[in-house]
């Protein structure tokens, strides 16, 4: 599902963010990408979301080699990913509904289906009934849940989260992680970048440790792990 093959990433300022990084995440797996700040986690996520391209090596997602993907194909590629940000990246001047509906609005989804799926996604994250509320009126935890609902509303096969619990207290962080676990249960591949080691230990999932741009430990995926690959996310009906 996700495969990094001898990936190097050097930025224009000369900084080498990734050095010969190789790992694999199987379909339906739940994997933590860990490491201290500046270790290279964000670079991995940027390569996955095609914000950046590798200097060398190949990144393959859902069987698609991303380094050769033409620019015009990037939007369609991104629509198959669900992305959760540490700082939520919400549109504060739009209600919750519009924020969650955004990935469906940019695709060809019919309005009738959008409504159904937005409500289902909000239900999943416990925010049903707050469609018309501005995100600014909600707590940080609720804002993060809006971000998660937005990430899963288009039924992605891969869910990527960048420090999704970075601004949350431990209770809220556990709540968010449990949400991710529920998505994994229905076949979504989940890759979470975090430096919250307590949480990583608590959830006891496979871990890819990255430091100074190099992968230090990446246990190979257990052939038996992960849910059966599915093309969509069944949770959001």
């Amino acid at each position, binding site marked *: 599902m996700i495969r990094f093959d001898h990936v190097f990433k050097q930025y224009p300022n000369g900084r080498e963010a990734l050095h010969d990084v190789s790992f694999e995440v199987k379909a339906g797996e739940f994997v933590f990408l860990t490491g201290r700040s500046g270790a290279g986690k*964000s670079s991995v996520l940027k390569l996955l*979301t095609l*914000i950046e391209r590798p200097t060398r090596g190949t990144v393959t997602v859902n069987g698609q080699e991303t380094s050769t993907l033409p620019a015009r194909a990037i939007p369609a590629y991104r*629509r198959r990913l669900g992305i959760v940000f540490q700082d939520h*990246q919400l549109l504060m001047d739009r209600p919750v509904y519009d924020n969650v509906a*955004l990935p469906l609005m*940019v695709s060809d*989804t*019919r309005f009738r289906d959008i409504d159904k799926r937005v409500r289902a996604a909000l239900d999943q994250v416990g925010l049903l009934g707050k469609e018309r509320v501005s995100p600014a009126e909600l707590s940080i935890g609720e804002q993060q849940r809006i971000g998660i609902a937005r990430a899963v509303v288009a039924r992605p096969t891969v869910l990527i989260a960048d420090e999704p619990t970075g601004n949350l207290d431990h209770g809220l962080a556990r709540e968010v992680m449990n949400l991710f676990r529920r998505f994994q249960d229905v076949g979504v591949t989940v890759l979470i970048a975090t430096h919250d080691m307590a949480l990583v230990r608590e959830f006891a999932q496979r871990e890819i440790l990255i430091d100074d741009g190099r992968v230090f430990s990446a246990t190979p995926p257990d052939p038996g792990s992960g849910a059966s690959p599915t093309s969509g996310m069944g949770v959001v009906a």
Partner: protein
Amino acid sequence: MISPGTYFSRHAQALLSAFGRLIRQPLGTLLTIFVIAIALALPSTLWLVVKNARIAAGDVTDSIELSIFFKTDVPLEKAEQLTAAARQRPGVGEVTLIPADDALEEFRRYSGFGAALDALQGNPLPHVIIVRPDTAYANPQGVESLKRYLSAWPEVETVQFDGEWVRRLTAILDLLRNVFAVFAVVLGVGVLAVVGNAIRLEIRARRSEIEVTKLVGGTNAFVRRPFLFEGVIFGLFGGAAAVGVVSLAVASLIEPVGRLAALYGGRFALTGLEPLEALVLIFGGSLLGVLGAWLGAARLIARIEARG
């Protein structure tokens, strides 16, 4: 493949979104529309000046006429035949034959030389025809072509026409038309710049929203769409406001211009924008608006990339 219903609903939504954005910034929106209205009203006013000048000049050019003097030995029957032939010529509007006897009688009546004329043995005057060109030929080139044609008849002694004033008048009208064209182009470019700049500022203000939209799979076309609709709205309302400004200006001038014309014995009435001209102005404004928005948005939006 996107269904037509979804396609149109996406566009309708982009249009509503554009309206919403503009309504949320009423002052900025009104100022932009005002600037566009002035930029469109200036060439439109000049257009009306040209149009009214042509109408006024048309009254004058109605009096253009050529006098064709036949040789004195041309009999009346021949003059009548040639008069009929002249009527068939393209470009000829009206032909009047003045037989030599009628001319002499008239001269006798008004000149006061009756006794002197009685002393003459015969009629020294030739038959004359007066030719008025039709509207298409009431210009220096048309009149010149008629003059050449009529002068070539062997029975004609001379063709008289003082065309210098027609040439001058036409040159003035041509100059006004050119000034209008220059104004229209310069101010059209101005509208493009105004709309393009307004849209660029809007895009810069919404940069983070664009980044998020792209990160969840929004295409450049999707992001661009509401901004293009904003351009259309700016142009549409700017054009409509320009029609209003020009109509008000014309309405305020109709009475004094009519009074001035009356002082010169004319019945000239100032003409405003025709409905079709008003529509051209409004839709032309929209076209400039969408073009300006495209110029302002296309490259800038393509350059904005998600940062994650």
